C-alpha cells in the first residue's frame, strides 16, 4: 500500500493551486456568479491551454493521457478554489461516457473538441422526480425515419445553458424492466426544440431542459440501444467520486480558513483557538477531512485501475456527505456571525459543498449499496 502522491501529482497540485489563487480572487468569484454564463471564458481558455480539459483522456484523442487519480488531484484543487464553470459537466459528465462507451468515431469526433476547450458538454439524467434511478426516467425517444425523436423534461442539469452538447438518458422501450429500457444519446444543445431555463440554485448553474420533439440521428446513440443505464453506470461512479474530490478540496479549504481564523480572532483577551473546545472542534474537522480524503482517493484509485469498486464509491460518497456537513457546521460555529456574512468568503464553500452533497442520491442509497455488499 502506498498513500503518497507521485511527484507529477504534487507538481500538478501546486501548479493548480497557484493558478487558481492568482486567477480567481474571491472578488472575481462574486462577479462571475452574477454573470449569465457563471464562469470566465478567459480562464476556461487558459485551462484548456494547460491541457486540463483533456487531462484524463488518451493522447490519441488529444488528451494528456493522465489517470483518474491525477484528475482527482486537480478536482480537489478546483474545490479548494470554489472554481465555477462547466469543467465537471464537460470533462466528467460529458467526456467519460464518450470515453467509456462511445464508438471509435464518437471518441475521434468529440474528445479532441473537449480537450481543446472548444466544446462544452453536460449530462441530462434527472427529471422532476428528483430521483437517480432508472425507473424515474420518463423522457422518451421514439424512432422516426433514420433517427430518433426525444421529448420530455430534464431537471437539475448542470451548465446546460452554455452546453454545446447534452448527453441525454431517455426511455426507448416501455416493456422491459427500467434498467434495460433506457438509451443514451448525444444531443446538440443549440437546436430548435430544446429549451433551457437556468434555475435559481444555491451554487452553480443548474437548468431545466425541455426537449420538444428533438430530432437526433441514430449515429448519436452512445453505447447500446436500451442499455444506456447499465452502460453509463461506470461514468456515474466516476462523477460521484469526482464530486467527492471537490468536497475534499472544499472542506480542506474550510478547515484551513477556520484554523487561521481561530488563531487570529481574539476574545477574552486571547485567540479563540487557544480555547480547548475550539481546538477540539478543529481536531474533529481535521479527522473528517482526512477520512474524506483517504476514502475518496481509495475509490478514485480503484476507478483509475479499472477495479470493481461499487462499495468503495458508496463508502466515499456516504462519508463525504456526512463528514462534509459536520465540517461546515463546525466551521460556521467557530467563525461566529462573520461566517454567515456575505462580505466574508465562507459562504462560497458552504453553498458549493451543499450543492455537491445534493448532486446524486442521498446517503441512504449508498448505505443500501454497502448493506448489499455486506450480504444483508
Amino acid at each position, binding site marked *: 500500500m*502506498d498513500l503518497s502522491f507521485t511527484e507529477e501529482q504534487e507538481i500538478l497540485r501546486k501548479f493548480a493551486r497557484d493558478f487558481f489563487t492568482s486567477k480567481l480572487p474571491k472578488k472575481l468569484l462574486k462577479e462571475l456568479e452574477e454573470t449569465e454564463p457563471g464562469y470566465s471564458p478567459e480562464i476556461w481558455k487558459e485551462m484548456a491551454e494547460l491541457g486540463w480539459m483533456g487531462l484524463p483522456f488518451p493522447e490519441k484523442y488529444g488528451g494528456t493521457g493522465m489517470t483518474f487519480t491525477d484528475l482527482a488531484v486537480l478536482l480537489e484543487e478546483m474545490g479548494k478554489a470554489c472554481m465555477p464553470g462547466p469543467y465537471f459537466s464537460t470533462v466528467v459528465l460529458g467526456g467519460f461516457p464518450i470515453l467509456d462507451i462511445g464508438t471509435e468515431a464518437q471518441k475521434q469526433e468529440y474528445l479532441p473538441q473537449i480537450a481543446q476547450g472548444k466544446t462544452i458538454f453536460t449530462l441530462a439524467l434527472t427529471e422532476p422526480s428528483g430521483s437517480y434511478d432508472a425507473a424515474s426516467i420518463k423522457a422518451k425517444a421514439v424512432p422516426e425515419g433514420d433517427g430518433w425523436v426525444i421529448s420530455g423534461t430534464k431537471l437539475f442539469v448542470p451548465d446546460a445553458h452554455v452546453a454545446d452538447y447534452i448527453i441525454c438518458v431517455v426511455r426507448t422501450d416501455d416493456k422491459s424492466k427500467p434498467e434495460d429500457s433506457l438509451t443514451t444519446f448525444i444531443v446538440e444543445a443549440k437546436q430548435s426544440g430544446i429549451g433551457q431555463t437556468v434555475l435559481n440554485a444555491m451554487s452553480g448553474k443548474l437548468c431545466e431542459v425541455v426537449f420538444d420533439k428533438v430530432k437526433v440521428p441514430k449515429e448519436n446513440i452512445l453505447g447500446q440501444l436500451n442499455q444506456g443505464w447499465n452502460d453509463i453506470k461506470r461514468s456515474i461512479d466516476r462523477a460521484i467520486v469526482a464530486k467527492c474530490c471537490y468536497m475534499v478540496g472544499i472542506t480542506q479549504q474550510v478547515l484551513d480558513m477556520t484554523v487561521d481564523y481561530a488563531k487570529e480572532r481574539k476574545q477574552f483577551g486571547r485567540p479563540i483557538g487557544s480555547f480547548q473546545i475550539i*481546538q*477540539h472542534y478543529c481536531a*474533529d474537522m481535521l479527522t473528517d477531512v482526512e477520512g474524506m480524503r483517504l476514502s475518496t482517493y481509495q475509490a478514485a484509485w480503484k476507478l483509475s485501475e479499472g477495479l470493481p469498486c461499487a462499495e468503495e464509491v458508496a463508502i466515499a460518497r456516504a462519508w463525504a456527505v456526512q463528514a462534509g456537513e459536520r465540517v461546515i457546521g463546525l466551521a460556521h460555529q467557530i467563525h461566529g456571525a462573520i461566517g454567515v456574512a456575505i462580505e466574508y468568503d465562507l459562504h462560497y464553500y458552504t453553498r458549493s459543498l451543499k450543492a455537491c452533497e445534493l448532486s446524486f442520491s442521498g446517503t441512504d442509497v449508498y448505505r443500501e449499496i454497502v448493506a448489499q455488499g455486506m450480504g444483508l
Partner: protein
Amino acid sequence: MDFRLTEEQEKFRKEVRDFLEGERKQGLWEPSIDSWIMAYDPEFTKRVAAKGWIGLTWPKEYGGQGRCAFDRFILTEEMLRHGAPAACHWFADRQIGGSILKYGTEQQKRELLPKIIKGEMYVGLGMSEPEAGCDLASLKTQATKKNDHYVINGQKTWTSGGKHMNHLYLLARTDPGVAKHQGLSEFIIPKDLAGITTSPIIDITGNEAWNEVFFENVDVPKECLIGKENNGWRQVMEQLAHERSGMERIMANYPVFEGIIQFVKENKQLCQDSIIRHKLAQLKIEFEVARLFMYRVALVIDEGRAPEWEAAMSKAYATAFEQRLAATTLEILGPYGQLAPQSKWTKLNGMAYHSYLSSKGYSLQAGTTEVLKNILALRKLGLPAG
C-alpha cells in the same frame, strides 16, 4: 498511490488466517473480544513465537524478522479478527521492544529482545498513577539512585493484566528537583523483585482487568534503566504513539461486528428492515474509514517517523466507532443485549454485553480522546496553547 497489498502480504495474511483457524478448529481457545488486553494464554503466545510472529519488525540480528510495520498490522489485524488470546506478548511486541531497540544498550537488546521473541517475557505497563492520569508527567513514583542501583518507591495503577506479567515497564522520577517533564526515566524490571506487590482492579464487566502495583524500597539494578537518565519523557512520547496506533483500536470488537451481521442475516424480519440494514451499513462505512486511518499509521511507521498525530487521530476516531458498534449492536439485540456471557438465552456469547461495558474505557486508555484531540489541535494544526 496504491491501495493494494502486495502478493507477499496477501500470502502472509492467509498464512496467519490458516494458523488461527487451525487453532480454533483444534479447540485451543475460543474467540473473545478485547483479546489483546484480556485474553492471556502463555501457550498460545509460545506457539505464535514459534511462527516467528513476535518481534516481526525487529532486526534479524536480535532474532526478529526484519519485516515492515505494515506486515505487523496485517498480523495483528488477523489476530484480532479471530479474537485470539494474544495479550501475554501484545504490549512488549507493540511498544516495549521498539523502545529497547531505540534506547537500550547493546546488552539490553541481546538479553531482552530474544526473551520477548521467544514468548517468555511479558511486560506490563507502569505509567499511570492515582494522581497522574492525563497529566502523566506529574507522576510521583521515585527512583532514587544509590551506588549501582535504584530504589523505587511509589504506586502505579491501571496496569493491564498485571498478574500475568513477569516484567514491568516503569516510568519513574529520578530527579525531583527539576521541571516535571525533565526528571523522569524509563526502566524495565522483573516483576518478582522484593517489595513489589499487586492488587487487582475489577472493571465494569466484572473481570480483573488491571492491577495496582505498589513499590516499597524496591532495589533495581542500574542495568534496568532504559536510555538516558532523566530523558524518560521524550522517550515515552514516542512509545505512546505506538501504543495508540495499532489495529486493536478498531478490530478489538470485530467478533461482535461479525456476530451482529450474522445475527441479522439469520433473522429475515431484521434483515429486510431498512433501518437495521442502514445502521449496519453505517457502521461498515465508519469501520472502513477507520481501517484506512490505521493503515496510514503503519505506513508512517515504515517511513521511520513516529506516527504522532496520525495515531492520535486514528485512536480518537476508532474508539468512538467501537463505542457506537457496541451500542448499536445492543440496540439491535434489544432486551437480549443485556444478558451476560454466562446467562441463559444470551446472544453472540454475550460478547456485545461485554463490548458495550468495556467500550466506555476505550476512549480513556492510552490517551483520552481529549488528550488526543489536543495533540491534533496543537501539534498538527498549530493552534495556540491555552
